[in-house]
């Protein structure tokens, strides 16, 4: 294998649109993470008239309470992002372990896990979260647990599906013939092959989790005021979309860029040239 080919493959990890998507995603994440540190105004201070329009010092005008929309936008991404990511990670660690177990086990363990996850998936994500939040309140950990319980069965299914493809691979059989322990086969032999599907899923699922938290905030059952949160900002200010659109545009555009960016990046990633060539030959 020549080094030029390696370089080619590296360059073709992402297509041009893939790189655009990646940079869109990263810039939204960056805004969400460092935004709260660089707000020009205190996002909670009442500085102007409700729905006052843009003026020097208040780039995006004022929100429904007369707070600086721009500062609230900057401050509003982090919390739901952190909730979504932690909720995802908790769900992913459980979903991954159970998914690998199901993929490797066969038999009743697999059947039970697969079936349970199917039943749980039967609960639409938003509905499940509404139920949990209605019962347990809307604290940080409740949101995390709710997100995790949405994610576990879905991740389990993906891991199981792609794990099953590997499960019958000759190298897994060879490992079995060697008498390898189960743990080794699950995590060392099967997991690395599940990883790409798992990561692609993560790429879609983390933004989807962010969106889910935003939807919940939108319905008034997620993050609670006066916290600034993108979903909440949209919910609080959308009534004035015709009067003061700048109050909602920040979060709308940020969420859209995040979703589009992640999808572009994943598409760009899949369009890897070396695999395309392998298809032809």
């Amino acid at each position: 294998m020549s080094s030029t080919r390696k370089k080619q493959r590296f360059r073709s990890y992402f297509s041009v649109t893939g790189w655009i998507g990646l940079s869109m995603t990263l810039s939204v994440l960056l805004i969400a993470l460092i935004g709260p540190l660089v707000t020009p105004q205190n996002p909670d201070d009442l500085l102007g008239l409700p729905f006052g329009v843009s003026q020097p010092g208040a780039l995006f005008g004022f929100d429904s309470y007369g707070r600086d929309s721009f500062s609230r936008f900057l401050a509003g991404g982090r919390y739901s992002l952190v909730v979504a990511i932690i909720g995802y990670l908790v769900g992913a660690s459980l979903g991954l372990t159970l998914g690998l177990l199901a993929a490797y086990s066969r038999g009743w363990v697999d059947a039970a896990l697969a079936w349970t996850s199917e039943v749980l998936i039967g609960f639409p994500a938003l509905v499940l979260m509404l139920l949990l939040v209605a019962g347990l309140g809307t604290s940080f950990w409740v949101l995390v647990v709710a997100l995790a319980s949405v994610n576990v069965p879905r991740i389990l299914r993906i891991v199981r599906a792609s794990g099953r493809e590997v499960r019958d691979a000759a190298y897994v059989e060879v490992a079995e013939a060697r008498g390898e322990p189960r743990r080794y086969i699950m995590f060392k032999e099967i997991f690395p092959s599940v990883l790409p599907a798992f990561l692609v899923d993560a790429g879609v699922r983390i933004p989807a989790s962010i969106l889910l938290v935003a939807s919940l905030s939108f319905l008034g059952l997620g993050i609670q005021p006066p916290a600034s949160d993108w979903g909440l900002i949209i919910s609080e200010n959308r009534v004035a979309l015709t009067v003061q659109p700048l109050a909602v545009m920040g979060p709308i555009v940020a969420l859209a860029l995040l979703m589009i960016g992640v999808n572009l990046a994943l598409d760009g990633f899949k369009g890897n040239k070396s695999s395309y060539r392998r298809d032809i030959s």
Partner: protein
Amino acid sequence: MKGTTDMDSQQGNFIENIKEGSLSRRQILKTAGALGIVGATGSFFDSASAATVSPEGYLATIKPRRGGNMTIGIGFGVGASNDPHVSPAGDQNVIRNFNVFNLLFWNDKTGALKPALATSATANSDATLWTIELRSGVTWHDGSAFTADDVVYSLKRIVDPATNALGASTLAMVDAANIRKIDNLTLEVPMKFPFSVLPDQLATKGMSIVKDGAMTFDPPIGTGAFKLVSGDKNRIILERNNNFWVSGMPYLDMVTIVNVMDATARINGVRTGILDTIYPVDAVGAASVAKDPKVITFVNKTRTYLPLYMNAAVKPFADVRARQAMKLATDRESMNRVSYAGQGYIGNDMFGILDSGYPTDIKQTSYDPEKAKALWKAAGNSNVKIELWTADEWPAQQSSATVWAQQAKKAGINVTLKTSPADQFDSKVYGVKPFSQDYWNYRSILTMWQEAFNPDSEYFKVQNWGPEKTQKLYKQAVGTGDPKLRDEITKEMLTIFHNEGPYIVWGFQASPDIYTSRIAGQENSSVRGLNGFHLETFFIKPL
């Protein structure tokens, strides 16, 4: 202001007889509220500069006419029951009950007590026995005649513990077992102790008069301006009661009340003419339509208030200096600006504004962070952290709490704003958390006191404040037949309340209404928006 004093003028008669048809539109117009309609071109937020049209000028040009359908969008609250005595507090229930059933007395748009199904109520000299005269010629929706039996049944039913009526405690002073029919249109209501303001109690929302023997209410048979055609959890349809006892009213053939949960969707509905009006509208919603020429905006300066309550039995609020510091840390102007677009009355930590028993000579408490800080420190609370609990259950609830927390921080009070989901506020916050919010629609000063500040009151436990001296004063007030003396006593009570009380009453609700331009008959009401729920006064503008 006026209100009860008018009625109290006749000696021995607490209530003036009101002639048939006296509740005419003309009279309503003459006593219209203080603030006019905000013209279609004026913004809700800079109405000071906007041309305001006086209601007389606006309405005098239009003659009311019969016919038409009005659609009202409401975020249906929890539950629905056609039984007016147990119906939950959701707006859809209140509006339906108020228009299908009638009370014995009701408040007009100025808050003045007016006879409805009763024509008068007269107490004996020590106010232990009330004689209530009823309106003649009133018929139920099913055509039968309204009599004293119906009233006796209704009052007993409300008080009966088996009914579990929401208003039972409001009539706690009534000796229900001995309520007695005198003749077809007269009954006697004995009191357990001297009580001189029974009509005020009878004007509160749980006091609907139902037909003698009524147990099920499908359909509800009332005496109100409208009959219920159908009602489910998404839509209530009312049609005109042609035999309504106020002649000529109602004007509308039909009123449709629809459930639109989302406030923005409701406003969109009015802006596009699908809904004729909506309830409630908050300042944010009104601001969003301020420049929309298709929408008429009304602002009602009401006497509804949303106090912040402090539980006086709990530290740090047990210390009166702490309570005073909290009041001084309140920037009322800011809260009024954000929550009521600057159009509500500023509160002075007392309720009953515009009532004759309200002390107007007390200096307005204003935002004084320095003094607040000093008092808070003096009470030993410098390092105390407090939580303010709020929810998005009532209009302006969340915004006022948010603003309060911001201002109080500047006065050295370490406060964290906590938000509960709206549906859990009543059960998990209200009366449980030591510092949160309350919501009171207009009721007379003594009725208010009776519900919240006597140790045996239903809501006493919420703030646990009611010193002996005020209890004594309350007994005196309800025991006297002299309205002047009563006003003196309530003024004294409210002064104590102002100085030591558990409520931060920062303002009274300015409640905007928005209507499509085809609707007429709007009035400014100091009770609540939407003409104080008097739907019989609306009509469709002739083309």
